[in-house]
């Protein structure tokens, strides 16, 4: 893992949270360069860098910007997705806590690239402190001339509006986020039209994740070749990972894409908590299929995780050890999707509600032999059968836990209890 930190290089500098400290550390150099470039050249360097969206889907950022039509007569918008809510994920939170101006700088560069005068930052409501950090940074950026009527002496305007969510995971889905920002329920929209063509207020819109945009200032300042010096051919750059659960040093860390999970676990996570044995881990939040100890040498990048049957997602690694029951963990994860389902599609709204209860009865010893094929059936019929990816996340939990830990499911049913727990729970409590 020998590389110069990029997104975290100022994390040891407490002054980097403020404008003066950020500028003293080299901040806003990317924007000052961007205002001398044409829109097309900004899009081109981001395309050439190979930067892919860090919010989960991994779509090439420069290509996304290039889709925005400029001749519609409508305004264009940049929307920053700071709704970070994928279970296990908290790197956007710390990136903003430590260096909010890097996000504003990336946002203003994106605005220039698509001719946008008003950018929106959608912050999840629970990030109240981080939203205040951003409000302060926005006020500083206006005073310093990095926002407002004459951005960095360019003669063009960029304003930023901060908008707080109110506790809905689904609003991280970009079209649900747009509905929420327009004052509607946060339910996803049919695509096409894609947001690049008809997004916020039916106008061309780019929606980018926080970490994605925070990579942009360096790319503009230092170039695409510099960006590609770290990472792999198809997954260039660094990635923030969050490692949590049964590890000695939970935290947010920056890695070169392609770093093996073993190295992240042992060197950054400090190894398993209390020297326990690794049992299972999610590579990219609860929505990405769980993997096992057999996958410990898998490289953390888009391609390698796909080949292993999972996804990089948000690179939120939640680690379970041998004392953790997979059925219990799966039940808790699926309960999350049941709670967060927006209710639009039947497989998600109903399937997750029932799956939560069937998993609870298996966990607590009231499972029937038919429940295991039933869960296979639910997982198969939820995956790719709903409007957005929320239900796919739930199906991934069900399918991957069944795939890797069938024996553990069967043992629950055979024993009539959880093999890892002593105290049984009354049936009416277990499945309530």
């Amino acid at each position: 893992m020998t590389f110069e930190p990029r997104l975290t290089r100022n994390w040891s500098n407490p002054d980097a949270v403020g404008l003066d400290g950020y500028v003293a550390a080299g901040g806003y150099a990317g924007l000052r360069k961007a205002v001398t470039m044409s829109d097309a050249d900004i899009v081109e360097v981001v395309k050439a860098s190979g930067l892919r969206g860090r919010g989960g889907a991994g779509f090439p950022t420069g290509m996304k910007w290039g889709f925005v039509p400029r001749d519609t007569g409508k305004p264009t918008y940049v929307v920053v997705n700071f709704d970070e809510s994928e279970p296990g994920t908290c790197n956007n939170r710390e990136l903003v806590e430590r260096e909010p101006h890097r996000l504003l700088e990336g946002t203003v560069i994106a605005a220039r690239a698509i001719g946008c005068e008003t950018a929106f930052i959608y912050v999840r409501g629970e990030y109240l402190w981080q939203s205040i950090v951003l409000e302060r940074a926005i006020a500083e950026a206006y005073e310093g001339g990095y926002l407002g009527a004459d951005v960095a002496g360019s003669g063009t305007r960029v304003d930023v509006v901060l908008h707080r969510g109110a506790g809905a995971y689904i609003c991280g889905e970009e079209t649900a986020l747009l509905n929420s920002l327009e004052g509607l329920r946060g339910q996803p929209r049919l695509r096409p039209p894609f947001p690049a063509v008809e997004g916020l207020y039916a106008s061309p819109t780019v929606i980018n994740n926080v970490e994605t945009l925070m990579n942009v200032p360096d790319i503009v300042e230092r170039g695409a070749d510099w960006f590609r010096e770290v990472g792999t051919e198809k997954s260039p750059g660094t990635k923030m990972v969050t490692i949590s659960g049964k590890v000695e040093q939970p935290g947010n860390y920056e890695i070169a894409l392609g770093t093996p999970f073993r190295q992240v676990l042992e060197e950054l996570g400090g190894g398993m908590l209390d020297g326990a044995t690794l049992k299972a881990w999610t590579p990219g939040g609860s929505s990405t299929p769980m993997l096992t100890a057999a996958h410990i040498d898998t490289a953390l990048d888009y391609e390698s995780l796909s080949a292993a049957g999972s996804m990089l997602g948000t690179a939120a690694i939640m680690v379970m050890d041998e004392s953790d029951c997979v059925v219990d963990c799966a039940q808790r994860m699926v309960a999350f999707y049941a709670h967060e389902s927006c209710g639009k599609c039947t497989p998600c709204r109903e399937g997750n509600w029932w799956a939560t209860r069937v998993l609870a009865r298996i966990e607590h010893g009231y499972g029937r032999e038919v429940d295991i094929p039933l869960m296979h059936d639910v997982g198969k019929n939820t995956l790719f059968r709903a409007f957005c990816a929320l239900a796919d996340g739930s199906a991934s939990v069900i399918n991957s836990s069944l795939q890797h830990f069938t024996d553990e499911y069967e043992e629950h049913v055979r024993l009539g209890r959880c093999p890892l727990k002593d105290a049984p729970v009354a049936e009416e409590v277990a499945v309530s």
Partner: protein
Amino acid sequence: MAAAPQQAVFAGDALDDARRIIARYPEPHGRSAIMPLLYLAQSIDGMVSQDALREIGVLLGITTAEVEAVATFYSMYRLRPTGEHVVSVCTNLACKLRGAEAVYTTAHEAAGIQQGAERSEDGVFTIHEEECLGVCDHAPAVQVDFCNHDDVTPVRMRELVASLRAGEVPSPSRGPAFASFKAASRALAGLEEVTAS
């Protein structure tokens, strides 16, 4: 005939606040202000009342039903009587793996709330089971009036509840403390005084 409905929630300074919120959004997209307006209502009444839903509709030129459809979608709006302090305990996987269930149970015991109920009879506390709060690096994660408390143990949870009951404002793990659910709701409406530091 009944008299025209009065603006009871959004009156005086609150009406000025509401107009400032609506002005944040580009014309003619005032409807985008519905979420911060719901937070503003919550900061005044400690919950979102039926009156507030109607008045937001009047302010934005939409129906009460349209406002209620939004208010009921999001878990951070409270449409029922709510404690002076809201204690939110994440029990999602990263926190569960570090002992969140015991913290959640302890929160109920300490606040004097039965499992399944959410508000203490004295009206001081509402305990809320949370989905991921985005503090997985310091699990179990808790928020008191939307301020973070990291690495919370059952012992720490008892201390938090005791200090709130004593009228103190516990220092959060990051950022300033808000003294109550109402005060935090005002900040969520974006009405905290923020100056360039």
